[in-house]
């Protein structure tokens, strides 16, 4: 028994070494397409406020199922505006805390330079084996891709070439590995500070699909957590908005 006597003392020491009680923690579920900007925002958030944001990345539909079944998330940054609304209607989110933190931008992208032209003519030429998109049933960017192809009158012709990734992250993986020579991805995946990071891309004009409004909401479990409110305020700050824009999102 005496061997364990040191344990409480060690725990007390550990507790004393922790930052002051004001600094809280918040569990955040983040849409996969917002991974890179959110990592930067969370780092800045911790530096500026002392609060720590614990991030989990994934598909919005999966998060909905997990939250409905008691997952401990306190804030959701969704890939759409429908899921936060539904959560509010289901009394799983705090009313009046929904807001649009970013407007997504769809891009047609190839890992190779010179494949995708600035006007997206490559689609009409159809000179490729596979066109990757995210699953339109579950991913908003996939639905926007189908909408775009429909507006361009190319859906019927290109349907046999379409391969679906489970999320926008997987659609990107199909293209970056070269298995699909091009695909519809989130601009945020291939865009830094005003230009395409590699390969070639066409930024799909917004008139070709419904806006990809991405809403955030405070979930019922985070209603009483000051760190959750602080994060929501921080997402609206100029500093966070600058990061969000740098990744190619609209606001």
């Amino acid at each position, binding site marked *: 028994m005496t061997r364990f006597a040191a344990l409480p003392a060690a725990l007390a020491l550990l507790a004393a070494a922790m930052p002051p009680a004001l600094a809280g923690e918040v569990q955040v579920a983040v849409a996969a397409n917002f991974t890179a900007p959110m990592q930067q925002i969370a780092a800045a958030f911790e530096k500026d406020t002392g609060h720590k944001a614990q991030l989990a990345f994934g*598909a919005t*539909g*999966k998060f*909905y*199922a997990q939250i409905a079944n008691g997952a401990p998330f306190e804030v959701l940054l969704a890939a759409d505006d429908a899921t936060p609304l539904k959560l509010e209607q289901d009394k799983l989110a705090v009313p009046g805390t929904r807001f649009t933190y970013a407007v997504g931008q769809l891009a047609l992208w190839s890992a190779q330079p010179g494949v995708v032209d600035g006007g997206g003519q490559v689609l009409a030429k159809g000179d490729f*084996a*596979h066109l*990757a998109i995210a*699953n339109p*049933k*579950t991913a908003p960017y996939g639905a926007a891709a189908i909408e775009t192809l429909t507006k361009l009158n190319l859906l019927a012709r290109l349907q046999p070439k*379409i*391969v*679906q*990734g*489970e999320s926008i992250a*997987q659609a990107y*993986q*199909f293209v970056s*590995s*070269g*298995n*699909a020579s091009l695909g519809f991805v989130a601009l945020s995946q291939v865009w830094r500070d005003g230009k395409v990071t590699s390969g070639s891309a066409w930024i799909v004009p917004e008139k070709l699909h419904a806006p990809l409004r991405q809403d955030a909401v405070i979930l019922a479990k985070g209603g009483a957590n000051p760190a959750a409110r602080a994060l929501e305020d921080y997402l609206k700050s100029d500093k966070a908005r600058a990061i969000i824009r740098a990744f190619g999102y609209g606001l």
Partner: protein
Amino acid sequence: MTGGAGMMDAADLRAVWLTLKLAGVVTLLLLLAATPIAWWLARTRSRLKTVVGAVVALPLVLPPTVLGFYLLVALGPHGPLGRLLAALGIGPLPFTFGGLVLASVLYSLPFAVQPLHNAFEAVGTRPLEVAATLRAGPWDRFWSVAVPLARPGFLAAAVLGFAHTIGEFGVVLMIGGNIEGSTRVVSVQIYDHVEALEYAQAHWLAAGMLAFSFAVLLLLYTFNPQPLRGRR
């Protein structure tokens, strides 16, 4: 969106048929590939035995996403396997039924090799030596002595390989591309239903999967109480 009543629709049934077809083809290929590997592992004294055994068992330990990701990269047009196959005139395998077959064979290989390996070891050297004194050649000894004696191992390998292919998800998701009729298997269809909040349809397929898996394992354990060991 589709089929509010919650029964299986045509797309669900196509996924079921595709899954059964995949598992059938994979089981045949598994038995063809696993038999020589298991025979060699059971008989060899080579120091390579431990290395080969470990490589075959890798899919038991690796997350399917690792295998799927490496297959996607390796089979892609810039990957080593993809280039080799292209040179042989075999088209890019990701997003095709053939690609799923290859991935599933690799992924389920330990489930076929281990029961066969144990069954061949259980046969021992004695019956084969006796057969040799009766002037049976190596092929004859293998086919008329080892194979009949190792029958429980073959049964276990076939059932486990079939069932494991049916239950596969991560690898298929990574290299399949979710194409209806060629790569959208039941596990992916269930995942899609859940993601799209079509819980009623998900339940039909998921409950079917559960019942099927239980029935298969019940059958296996009835005839073979220690299936992974491959003996009676």
